[in-house]
């Protein structure tokens, strides 16, 4: 298992949340919003606007600043649990298709 920041994950990669490094209030808020340790996040979209979109709890889309994503520690899930079909489809479509 590799520990890394959420920010370092690529699109469509998944990680299991280990720790949020933030001041107490914010850490609690993020935890309650669904970034609780042990739950799985999927990076959906790494924009360039200083934000990224991640999926939490298997369906919510949350936009989060990359700075903050840098402070969320995850355990990368190799061969992420996404079904092969979906993964291929998303790569095919999601990568720089313009």
């Amino acid at each position: 298992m590799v520990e890394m920041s959420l920010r370092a994950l690529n699109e469509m990669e998944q990680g299991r949340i280990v720790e949020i490094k933030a001041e107490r209030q914010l850490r609690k808020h993020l935890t309650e919003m669904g970034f609780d340790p042990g739950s799985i996040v999927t990076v959906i979209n790494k924009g360039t606007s200083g934000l990224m979109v991640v999926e939490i709890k298997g369906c919510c889309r949350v936009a989060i600043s990359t700075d903050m994503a840098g402070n969320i520690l995850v355990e990368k899930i190799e061969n992420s649990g996404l079904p092969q079909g979906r993964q291929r489809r998303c790569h095919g479509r999601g990568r720089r298709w313009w």
Partner: protein
Amino acid sequence: MLQKKKRPVIALAGNPNTGKSTVFNALTGAHQKIGNWPGATVEKRWGTLLKKHRRGGQSAKIVDLPGTYSLSAYTTEELIARNFIVEEKPDVVVDVVDASNLERNLYLALQLKELGANLVIALNMVDIAQRRGYKIDVKKLSELMGCPVVPLVADKERGIEELIEVSMLAAEGKVKSRQLSVNYGRDLEGEIEELADHVLRHAKPLAKKYGARWVAVKLLENDAEIISKVNSLDDDICDISLINFAKETEEKLGEPIDINIASRRYGFINGIVKTVLEKSPEERIIRSDQIDRLITNPILGMPIFFAIMYVLYQAVFLVGEPLMGLVEGGVELVSEFAENALIAYNAPEWLSSLILAALIEGVGNVLIFLPNILLLFLGIAILEDTGYMARAAFVMNRVMQKIGLHGKSFISLVLGFGCNIPGIMAARTLKNKDDRLLTILINPLVPCAARMEVFVFIAGAFFVPAVAGQVVFSLLLLSFVLIALAGILFRKFLVGGKREPFVMELPPYHVPTIKGLILHMWERTKVFVQKAGTVIFVVALLMWFLASYPDGVEYGSAESYIGMLGKGLSPIFAPLGFDWRGTVALLFGFLAKEVVISAFGILYGVADEAVLTDTIAAVWTPLQAYVFMVFILIYVPCFAAVAVIKQETGSWKWMAFAIIYTTALAWIVAFLVLQLGTLLGYA
């Protein structure tokens, strides 16, 4: 004697984006009251159960609690929701839960149960969940959560009747409900038990109000409000011991307890979700993601946003134009009718002038903009309700960051184009005080629809149509530049540099309901109509009076009060080249920007708009007109907006600052434009 049954209070709770307001609208219809929660700039909505929903004539009060993710005291909204449940003890709390997002939504439901609320879960959007291939065992869910669960499609008003029935039964205590208690694990449970025991002995009032176990858990979670409540108890020695106990526990267990507790709750919910939810693994929100990829694309995102806004504005003016013609025709009809009636009844001249010039012209001139404002707010409501606005904030985040603002400030700015008042109020979504203050202070620089109308009117009088469009556009660009400058400077010199970290849920796209859109649009337009009915009416009267007296002067001439006022103040504006008429128009513009046009009508003694444009165009040079528009673009927002700035910042100081900085900036920029224009030979 027959005792009248007490009207039950039903509180609506829920996460943001769960369709809570749709449920609220379905229950209360348009009869809603909007105000503020005491001591906070958070909107409070409440209403009465619609007649058609009343079983046996039994009414109910419905209170819409702010949308929150939890009941910790992180945001004011959370605190308000929690306090309402504890202090006001609503008979029933209906938690609106998004069926396709069960796990995250049940977190709040669980906290509500822990707080001892008489809970009913409204499982909303079951149709979407079904389409995604989710199967939810409602009966099991109800059993495990220890409260009734009612499936719902609030958009289509399906299940609303059942929800009301169950809620009413729950209010009477006639449904099965049981206590829910999360097991926080062996280590923690021991500590909780011990601490609860202390609470029971030493903090009796709190234990009575919240329950000893709940207080104990909150103390361990380091809940600021509960800690301060414990601190304010008389019994000093044990207060300290209670708080220390929590600290010691944390040290002993060697991990952040609050996170641990939250995780345990999620663990508990996860167990429930696993039992009640069947999900086919392939089903995910793929289409929404694909749209997002396009819309939030780093290269295309911004052009798409501007294209959408352009289309929106074009559509507003295209559809709005004929509607404005209709309103104008209506005003003329009324005016004609009144004139005839006044002649027929031999009314004195002052009365005719009062009714025709002040009331009908004054108010009518403003009402003409109503269609455009309605349409603009309809457009914005569509952008918000479909979920696009959240994406726009996402796309514009970087630009907003660069100019010192927050990504979410962007929504406030967009709303400002309709009217600055909802724009300023939208700053509420920002949690950080500095971000919010900055967003509020900047908003007056966004040219609202009323100011745009003044520009369209003046530019139309001085320039041929093709150029007039460019002139108005140049003013828009100027406002962008000023917003950027003000943002950077204010962030640097005025407020702190700390910004709220950006976390925002992107709701899945969905087709808005007509009812929701109309309610949304109307809420914001209402401010404008109320203004036309009150402030502008009074202003029109006042203007008429000042223009007609002292007795015997020619209406709106230099000898009238209004003329004297303008003459007295005109030295201030002389360097900008405004005459006394311009000065007066600006003065009245503070009361409402739309009034500037009516003011010209009165000052030049012409009511007909076409004649008025010719009259003005003959007196001013195009450069003067442009400088005048620049001043109007920037100077103090209308007084309704100023009042809202006071309300939202809670400070006279910031209100005064907003008035002074905008007006000073307007003077300086207008002066510079005049000098530059003269240099370039436009005079």
